[in-house]
């Protein structure tokens, strides 16, 4: 049986609520970025908005999959098993992986200030092949997210080193926490604690992002 992850029954509903919360926070960041794009007409804000919208959609999808597909396996545990789910659910799961990794990929493309869109198309195709051809989807998913998160961490670390801005540091911290959370999630294929730890860490990371967003929206109204 190919298990994508194990979820403790007591955490099942809470996990779904958290996933919807992450989706809402990511969506709020995307909407703000699109609003700023509308005012400034700078393409990087639009791409940034797309990346967070994609991450938001991926969380909605996984919340739906958890709600509809995860099955009870006894011992107070639930499981998302790749061998048990229907083709439609499998497609949903692959779409979740694709949207999440694509979101991080576009985020890397934007923050690293790459200008050639062919690079982005090439990366998307490579991602698709990895998802479809990989024998261990859970591990391939972790590897791809870890790779992009590491690049983002390196970018935010260098931004913080040059600016010494506390808010840039907090975004750096949130991406480091997200990377650790992804590491914990890979453990959840064998042990359900990984699932709980990863969700709690993600909650911390998204809370930091949300706090920054609220600060920006309040503080940004003042005129320079």
């Amino acid at each position: 049986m190919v298990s994508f992850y194990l979820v403790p029954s007591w955490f099942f509903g809470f996990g779904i609520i958290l996933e919807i919360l992450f989706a809402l926070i990511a969506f709020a960041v995307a909407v703000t970025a699109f609003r700023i794009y509308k005012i400034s007409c700078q393409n990087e804000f639009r791409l940034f908005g797309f990346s967070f919208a994609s991450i938001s959609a991926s969380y909605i999808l996984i919340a739906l999959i958890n709600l509809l597909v995860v099955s009870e396996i006894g011992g107070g545990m639930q499981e998302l098993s790749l061998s048990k789910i229907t083709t439609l659910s499998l497609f949903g799961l692959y779409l979740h992986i694709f949207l999440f990794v694509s979101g991080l990929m576009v985020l890397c493309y934007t923050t690293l200030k790459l200008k050639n869109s062919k690079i982005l198309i090439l990366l998307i195709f490579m991602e698709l092949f990895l998802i479809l051809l990989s024998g261990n989807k859970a591990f391939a998913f972790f590897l791809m997210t870890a790779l992009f998160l590491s690049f983002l961490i390196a970018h935010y670390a260098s931004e913080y080193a040059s600016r010494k801005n506390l808010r840039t540091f907090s975004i750096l911290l949130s991406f480091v926490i997200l990377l650790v959370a992804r590491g914990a999630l890979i453990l959840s294929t064998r042990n359900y604690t990984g699932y709980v730890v990863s969700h709690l860490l993600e909650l911390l990371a998204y809370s930091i992002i949300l706090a920054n967003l609220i600060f920006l929206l309040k503080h940004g109204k003042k005129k320079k």
Partner: protein
Amino acid sequence: MAKKRSKLEIVHTILENIRARNGKIKPTHILYKSNLSYQMMETYLEELKQKGLIAELSVKRGKTNAKTYAITDKGLDYLDKYRLITEFAETFGLE
């Protein structure tokens, strides 16, 4: 060494200079106020025009038509929300 200005800052300087001159300015004024090369200024003005932040006007001076640039409502909105734009860009490492 002075820090290299970001694109957002340069756009802000151009728009702020137009606004300071009652919303209309000649390209030569933009050139010395924004501290850009002629070529860079042309590139920026073209981009701002395309994005609807400024509009090009033709003002009759004697027998010739002089080119001037006016700030649009969208341009004024940019200046109004500049703090939000730069702080978002700084926080999320987009500058």
